[in-house]
């Protein structure tokens, strides 16, 4: 009964879903256009950087830059979806569970669909700069080989991001492996720090021979292999090409196999969805809901629910974990690399607030309950901020302590904490109105990394804009801190708290007004596509 199904229908389905998602929604079209601009910008910058060694006619530079640049692309595809962007899962594997499709067909199809998107296109264009370089250095034959290489590289990038996010999603859902997955996710996020460090250290020392030897090693790993084959032809080492092709293909095949395993378990839903505590409780419903110290009021109920949600909702939990790790590792990486920690503190504080950028998107249609019960905007906004602060402020305290300890200057603790709190308050002030005006729907899947198409671009753009704005708004305080360094030790904490509180009060006031006027529109914005 079933005919042969290729990958093409999946690609068409994905494009059709993307187009339908945009139809008649001007805000989503705007986001999509922004995403496209973003991708275009990345593609152009990437292409020109990879083309530089060719223009400079330096085989040596090319041999250092191409494998390392390629490895950076692959690592970017590995980390960015996990930590920042999520993956576009407009084709949710679970939807195909009832169709008579072979696993191979399904994976090929989903893979092809994953390739049909702006990020993949931008990556392809960027890495085409390598073909440019190789063509100038080694002629058309070498360029042809490199073209094959960057195509393989693209397949590798997409396979890595799919396999890893899917594996984490599966693991985070199952009761047995959830904590392990949370820890390894944290470690993975943490690995960004040391990687950055290594890159910084390498760049600072600018010892090109070391870089070249690292690059030679990387070229033999799956990360760099596909990106170095054209150069091998250009340098007269064509015998390496088949070996490296083999390495790349084997890596891609292994990743796809891994992906197909986790997709399958996601489809049949083997992983128990959440804690199933069977023992009955005799405590009263209100006591069960409220945390011990929470007031028995509307505000207390909202805060308690939010606090439980930050832990029980896989999406929010992934968010908290990655932030807590980033907040510990950013100061370390900067402390080691000698630059001033002022910028980092601001960055960490604003980054903390960013978790609330799409706070209503996390709730989805469940937010309707707060509309029908008529929760005033001010109470809603304040309760959400308080719940988040209860998780965040201890982490900021830890960051401040860490910075003070690493700089062997315990006296700095208070001043640093002041800067962090100021940045957090200002960040909240920026993010809260955005969370109402720029809310977007998250797909209704259990995968915490899943994004509807355009969602990733939206998130990336918002993140960048808020980070920039947060740094700008906190700049005056940072300058004061710099110029009044000795006094800052004493006034830093109160001044920072005052600055942050002012930022928060202004922003949350705007947000509350907005919310009172736009509750139904907000609900529509966070309702997943139907």
């Amino acid at each position, binding site marked *: 009964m079933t005919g042969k199904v290729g990958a093409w229908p999946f690609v068409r389905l994905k494009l059709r879903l993307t187009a339908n998602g945009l139809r008649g929604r001007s805000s989503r079209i705007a986001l999509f256009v922004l995403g496209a601009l973003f991708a275009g910008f990345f593609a152009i910058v990437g292409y020109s950087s990879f083309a530089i060694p060719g223009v400079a006619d330096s085989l040596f530079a090319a041999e250092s830059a191409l494998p390392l640049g390629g490895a950076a692309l692959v690592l970017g595809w590995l980390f960015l979806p996990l930590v920042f962007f999520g993956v576009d899962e407009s084709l949710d594997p679970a939807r195909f569970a009832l169709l008579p499709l072979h696993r191979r067909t399904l994976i090929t199809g989903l893979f092809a669909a994953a390739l049909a998107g702006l990020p993949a296109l931008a990556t392809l264009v960027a890495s085409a700069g390598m073909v440019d370089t190789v063509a100038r250095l080694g002629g058309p034959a070498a360029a042809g080989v490199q073209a094959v290489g960057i195509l393989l590289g693209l397949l590798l990038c997409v396979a890595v991001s799919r396999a890893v996010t899917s594996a984490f999603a599966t693991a985070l859902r199952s009761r047995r492996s959830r904590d392990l997955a949370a820890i390894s996710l944290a470690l993975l996020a943490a690995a960004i720090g040391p990687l950055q460090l290594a890159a910084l250290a390498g760049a600072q020392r600018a010892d090109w021979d070391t870089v070249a030897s690292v690059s030679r090693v990387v070229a033999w790993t799956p990360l760099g292999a596909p990106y170095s084959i054209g150069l091998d032809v250009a340098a007269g080492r064509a015998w390496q090409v088949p070996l490296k092709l083999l390495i790349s293909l084997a890596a891609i095949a292994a990743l796809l196999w891994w992906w197909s395993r986790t997709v399958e378990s996601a489809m049949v839903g083997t992983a128990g969805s959440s804690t199933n505590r*069977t023992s009955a409780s005799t405590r009263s*419903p*209100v006591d069960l809901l409220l945390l011990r110290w929470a007031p028995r009021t509307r505000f207390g109920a909202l805060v308690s*629910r939010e606090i439980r949600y930050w832990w029980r909702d896989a999406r929010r939990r992934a968010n908290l974990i990655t932030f807590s790790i980033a907040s510990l590792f950013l100061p370390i990486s900067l402390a080691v690399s000698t630059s001033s920690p002022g910028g980092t503190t601001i960055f960490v504080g604003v980054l903390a607030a960013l978790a609330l950028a799409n706070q209503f998107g996390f709730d989805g*249609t469940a937010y309707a309950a707060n509309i*029908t019960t008529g929760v005033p905007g001010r109470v809603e906004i304040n309760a959400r901020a308080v719940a988040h602060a209860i998780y965040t402020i201890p982490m900021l305290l830890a960051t401040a302590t860490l910075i003070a300890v690493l700089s062997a200057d315990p006296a700095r603790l208070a001043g640093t904490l002041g800067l962090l709190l100021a940045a957090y308050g200002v960040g909240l002030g920026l993010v809260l109105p955005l969370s109402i005006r720029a809310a977007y729907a998250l797909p209704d899947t259990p995968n915490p990394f899943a994004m509807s198409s355009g969602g990733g671009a939206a998130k990336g753009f918002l993140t960048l804009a808020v980070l920039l704005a947060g740094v700008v708004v906190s700049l005056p305080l940072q300058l004061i801190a710099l110029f009044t360094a000795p006094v800052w030790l004493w006034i830093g904490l109160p001044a920072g708290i005052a600055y942050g509180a002012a930022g928060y009060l202004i922003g949350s006031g705007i947000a509350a007004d907005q919310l009172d006027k736009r509750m139904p529109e907000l609900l529509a914005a966070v309702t997943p596509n139907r």
Partner: protein
Amino acid sequence: MSLGGLVKRFDTKLAVAGVSLEVPAGSFYGLLGPNGAGKTTTLSMAVGLLRPDEGRALLLGYDVWADPTAAKARLGVLPDGVRLFDRLTGPELLGYHGLLRGMDAATVDQRARELLEVLELGAGNRTLVVDYSAGMKKKIGLACALLHAPRLLVLDEPFEAVDPVSAALIRDILQRYVAGGGTVVFSSHVMEIVERLCDHVAIMSSGVLRMHGPLDQVRGDKSLEEVFVQVVGGRVATGSELAWL
């Protein structure tokens, strides 16, 4: 409840094209219509979940859009196609709704326990609502709508996915509620339930009210199902199609 000329347009599609409806206080009002008729859209606009393009909605004399606080305080809603805060357990969810309604904790506890027992959801049940069955989710949603003893209940398909015993139970609850002076508006596809419960019905199709009024007047001497099919004009039998089935 009084709806005046409600209109909602999605993109170019007119989902609700000017619905005006008077629901007398103390009545049990059934809203019928084929799939896609605009029932959910109408009820969402009536309770303040969806902003109408035109028209207004008065709940017990308060305008939902002009005076939402007063209107919503007296209203209980069971929306359709909307999730609950389902990572709470049943008791937690009821506690949440109760406190959001500004009730005092002791009353919330007592009523929540009673509702959980009566609806057979278990007052000590610590399963998260995500892991409930579809019918249990409907029941806990209904419990959330009833908790603050509103004067007006708007329920979108309350009997969908509910087993016969629970359905009888819900019918009984609702009948007692109306006997006590409450007003119920609900949408349903189950004619028997509507015929048995309602004193008023309205039939919608394609975003327009086709017929409305007291049940006996709408029904005449036919059965409600016959009237429905006649008004809506669908087909109830297949011809030569689907022969391969």
